[in-house]
């Protein structure tokens, strides 16, 4: 006689032990240290911090190690940890004018005050495998020049002086920033909430959305006005002492796009903006975010929507979160046999009726 499957508990324990064993891999090879991950896989760290919404390179490294390099799994570990932390206040707005940039480029001007600073970029590398890294891979230290220690005025400021680009204003309703991690997402969302959702959205999802706008699904003619990566300080006002103190210095990527102008007979045309802001060095995502931000702004700018996916706030905001997405997509591997059984019965009954009707 068939005996109902028992022993789920033992199966789970064994699966966990096997997983740990595979994570460690060949014991003849040195165990990967969290420090090695932190210092040598910094772009993975950036992704985990950005999509985990927690700036902590050490924990991100630990998560990557524990997740065997699966970054979505690592992001999930960070999110599950982050949500247990108390929220003790709201930091002061970050002023990216004060960034000490290691990279700052503009595609809209040949040269500009402060100059173009390439920084540590893959952009002009030839994508040839460097077989030296297979062997010892010792690399000379690089000392950046003095020009990397300055602050840069934002490129869009130059356009602003002419009044030729829209100015960003903080409306009173946005002064108090909503918190996506403490309130349920409700549509329509204001721009602050949208940006919050986009910065923690999956990079691949945003990249695809941004790409679709360039190919014509909600086209908005973007120029990269400026892309900058560097360190900025985060300040927090401690009520007891009554002034701001610096609580952290974080690396961020910021992208401002300058987009197609719009105007009418009464309103002179202006350039519009898209904005991207991401933890760590993550310019692919910062650019993507700026494009999608701009695409989502059609209503407030008085444009007509093409009905393109990237212009659809509900579509973009509900589907960009990779932790929600991976959970729901993967959950179909859990047992569903009760529902399947119900479907079986139904389809048998409908088929029987159909066959009888055919015969009769």
């Amino acid at each position, binding site marked *: *006689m*068939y005996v*109902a*499957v*028992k*022993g*789920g*508990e033992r*199966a*789970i324990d064994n699966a966990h032990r096997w997983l740990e064993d595979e994570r460690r891999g060949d014991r003849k090879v040195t165990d990967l240290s969290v420090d090695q991950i932190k210092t040598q896989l910094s772009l993975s760290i950036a992704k985990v911090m950005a999509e985990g919404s927690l700036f902590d390179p050490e924990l991100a490294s630990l998560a990557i190690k524990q997740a065997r390099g699966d970054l979505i799994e690592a992001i*999930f570990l960070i*999110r*599950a940890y*982050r*949500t*247990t932390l*108390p929220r003790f206040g709201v930091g002061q707005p970050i002023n990216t004018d004060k960034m000490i940039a290691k990279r700052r480029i503009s595609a809209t001007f040949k040269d500009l005050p402060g100059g173009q600073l390439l920084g540590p970029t893959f952009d002009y590398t030839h994508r040839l495998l460097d077989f030296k890294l297979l062997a010892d891979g010792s690399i000379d230290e690089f000392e950046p020049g003095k020009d990397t220690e300055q602050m840069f005025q934002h490129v869009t400021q130059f356009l602003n002086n002419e009044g030729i680009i829209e100015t960003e204003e903080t409306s009173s309703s946005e002064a108090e920033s909503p918190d996506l*991690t*403490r*309130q*349920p*997402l*409700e*549509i*329509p969302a204001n721009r602050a909430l949208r940006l919050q959702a986009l910065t923690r959205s999956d990079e691949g999802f945003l990249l695809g959305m941004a790409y679709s706008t360039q190919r014509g699904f909600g086209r908005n003619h973007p120029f990269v006005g400026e892309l900058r990566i560097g360190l900025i300080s985060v300040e927090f006002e401690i009520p007891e002492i009554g002034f701001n103190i610096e609580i952290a210095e974080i690396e961020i990527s910021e992208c401002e796009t300058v987009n197609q102008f719009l105007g009418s007979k009464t309103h002179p045309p202006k350039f519009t903006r898209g904005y991207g802001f991401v933890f760590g060095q993550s310019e692919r995502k910062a650019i993507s975010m700026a494009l999608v931000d701009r695409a989502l702004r059609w209503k407030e700018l008085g444009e007509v929507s093409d009905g393109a996916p990237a212009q659809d706030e*509900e579509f973009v905001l*509900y589907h960009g979160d990779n*932790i*929600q997405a*991976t*959970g*729901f*997509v*993967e*959950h*179909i591997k*859990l*047992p*569903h*046999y*009760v*529902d399947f*059984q*119900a*479907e*079986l*019965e*139904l389809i048998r*009954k*409908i088929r029987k*009726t*159909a066959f009888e009707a055919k015969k009769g």
Partner: protein
Amino acid sequence: MSNSEEDFNFAYLDEQTKRMIRRALIKAICIPGYQVPFASREMPMPYGWGTGGVQVTAACLQETDVLKVIDQGSDDTTNAVSIRKFFERVAGVKTTENTGKASVIQTRHRIPEQVLSEDQILVYQVPIPEPLRFLEPRETETRVMHALEEYGLMHVKLYEDISINGEISTAYAYPVKVNDRYIMDPSPTPKFDNPKMNFCPAIQLFGAGREQRIYAVPPYTKVISLDFEDYPFEASRAEKTCEICGATNTYLDEVVIDDKGTRMFSCSDSDYCNSQKS
């Protein structure tokens, strides 16, 4: 996750979060079948594994509670085992497989066969809380449809089912109307279980973590499966007998037992099956 239980608040969630969830639960109880938005947290298990149910259970649990967790009707399925272990670890509550002895029952895809009592809470894990979702993908639209009690679309869908297939072709997550007002998704339970929801003495709570919704059916509330006078609702099951306990009135699993595809049928509710055997 750390191995030390002292690192966690009772039932994992912090008290503020539990309070937020309890407020949503109270609102849900007051408006039967209405989907209350709540600030769902990331849990240490993935979305889709029952994070909504786990949060609702965490907000309901007290130290004296006895918890039962089932998935597909059984206490032994891997995810039921995993969630039960989670609460044993972070809440230290007693657990049981005995339906009658549980004060809180968290379930995925089934309602126990044994009639529940006034002292019990049944917590459902819900993937898609919106019964209209597959007719209208936009949340902004479906919320308006509920507000206006505009359910024509659903009736047209059921009618079209009949005109195409000769009957309503929904076998699970069969829509119900609660307290003559809201159309509600009973979660993906087989429609066999729907009648158990009607005037159930226990509190029925529904948690959808990823979708950030909580809804509820208070005790002794009217829950009617949608149908037509000439095509009345029918709670269907495999017309077989459980080969383990001999029950003829329970929902059955169909199990393939050899390479030739021979089937056997047995109760999906493992606790009920055991109790009938002895």
